[in-house]
């Protein structure tokens, strides 16, 4: 986003805050180095000046709509809408949340922005190790877009265009639309030739493998999981208070009786052994059928490098192929299991 666009975004947020139409706004602020950013809750005019939007803005803000339901960012009686800056790939997550009544559309004020791809820190760290980036770039550089190029402005004022493939998140390389389809305020022009829903064909190579080979692959992936629940806690659709696959969250509301606590089945323990991990990750994957919009935050955040995106993209591909249904397509869609068609597949049923 060029500096004028950033100023435009900051002004739009500042005006809404000054006019008192928002109880707060979600944006990004610069993070621990030039290539990282962190969410920023803007409540005052001063906060707005810290807001940024650049290729460093990788974390998705949509999760914080669920966090707001659980840990409100403003007092209960403050009914004003909550502002949120949305990139092209974020609108699907918001549509899903609206479909599931986690948030109503009028509770949100959406600032649409034109995003041309955000960085993946794991890839940037590899460049650092190979010496293609220096720690000075990390400390004093700044990132920006120039059309579709990712440009690093170094401390001594030079500009370097970085290769998209070696810095951007995988999802950004197959981006289906720079700007969100739903917004209240659009900063910059709308991306007219949006390709609609994300392309999902990069899992062919795994599908072609034999069942044995696939289990070998997934067994090594699942055995690395340390059950830190980051993939669930960052997920833009996972909003259950009592999570079936997290034994700690069973029967915890102060209304739950001793009987509930004692008799609630414990599906899996808190161990991180392969069977329990497989149970956890498979259940998470199919709970995403018709709900997961492949924002791939789980894949970005997994500290043990599990390729969760391959699981979610498989489920999304099947749901589209089998039922012509896509999560995050529109708020008029009903839930996946609420609808049915004559030609729903049943060949696997005796």
């Amino acid at each position: 986003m060029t500096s004028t666009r950033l100023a435009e975004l900051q002004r739009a947020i500042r005006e809404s805050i000054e006019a008192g139409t928002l109880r707060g706004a979600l944006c990004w602020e610069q993070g621990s180095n030039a290539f990282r950013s962190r969410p920023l809750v803007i409540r005052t005019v001063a906060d707005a000046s810290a807001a940024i939007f650049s290729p460093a803005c990788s974390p998705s803000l949509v999760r914080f709509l669920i966090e707001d339901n659980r840990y409100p960012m403003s007092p209960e009686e403050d009914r004003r809408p909550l502002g949120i800056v949305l990139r092209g790939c974020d609108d699907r997550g918001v549509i899903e949340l609206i479909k599931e009544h986690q948030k109503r559309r009028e509770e949100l004020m959406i600032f649409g922005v034109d995003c041309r791809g955000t960085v993946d820190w794991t890839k940037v760290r590899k460049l650092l190790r190979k010496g293609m980036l220096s720690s000075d770039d990390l400390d004093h550089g700044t990132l920006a877009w120039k059309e579709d190029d990712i440009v690093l402005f170094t401390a001594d004022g030079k500009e370097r265009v970085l290769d998209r493939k070696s810095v951007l998140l995988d999802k950004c390389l197959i981006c289906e639309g720079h700007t969100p389809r739903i917004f209240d305020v659009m900063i910059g022009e709308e991306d007219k030739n949006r390709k609609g829903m994300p392309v999902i064909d990069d899992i062919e190579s795994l599908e072609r493998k034999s069942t044995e080979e696939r289990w070998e692959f997934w067994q090594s992936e699942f055995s690395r999981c340390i059950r830190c629940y980051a993939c669930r806690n960052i997920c833009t659709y996972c909003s259950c208070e009592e999570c079936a696959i997290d034994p700690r969250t069973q029967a915890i509301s102060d209304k739950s009786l001793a009987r509930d606590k004692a008799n609630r089945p414990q599906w899996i323990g808190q161990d991180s052994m392969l069977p329990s991990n497989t149970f956890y990750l498979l259940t998470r994957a199919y709970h995403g059928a018709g709900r997961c919009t492949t924002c791939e935050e789980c894949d970005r955040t997994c500290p043990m490098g599990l390729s969760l995106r391959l699981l979610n993209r498989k489920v999304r591909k099947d749901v589209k192929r089998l039922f012509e249904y896509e999560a995050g397509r529109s708020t008029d869609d009903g839930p996946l299991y609420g609808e049915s068609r004559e030609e729903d597949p049943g060949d696997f049923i005796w």
Partner: protein
Amino acid sequence: MAQENEAYEPKIIAFLCNWCSYAGADLAGTSRTQYPPNIRVIRVMCSARVEPLFVLKALLEGADGVLLSGCHIGDCHYLKGNFAARRRYAVFVELMKYVGIDPERFQMSWVSASEGAKFGKVVADFVERVARLGPRKRLELSESLEKLIEGGGT
């Protein structure tokens, strides 16, 4: 391989929907249709009540196979129950194949209250198929726990 299978009697968990398949199983019993005794029946009110979570839990606890049987499409006592089950397990079966966790150890079927014979055939065929797979299972918790003890931890 055959000798080992003789000793190996697979345990199958069968979720039967109360209105059709459970009645079908009853009919199979009363009309003395022969089918192997390996299934342990759990009666549920609708095939949609059975979440894939239950199937995974059965496999985790060491079941050799899981059968889910409900009413034919259109017969569902709750009208749409088996539609939802059909969609849910279409996704789940694909996922099991994709990950390679014993997809053959799960079988779904529609058995109406009058299809005693079909119920017998479904069970017999499923048990025979599972028996051929042998006892080695991928999703069993007790195996990992036991390994943890002998190996003195990781």
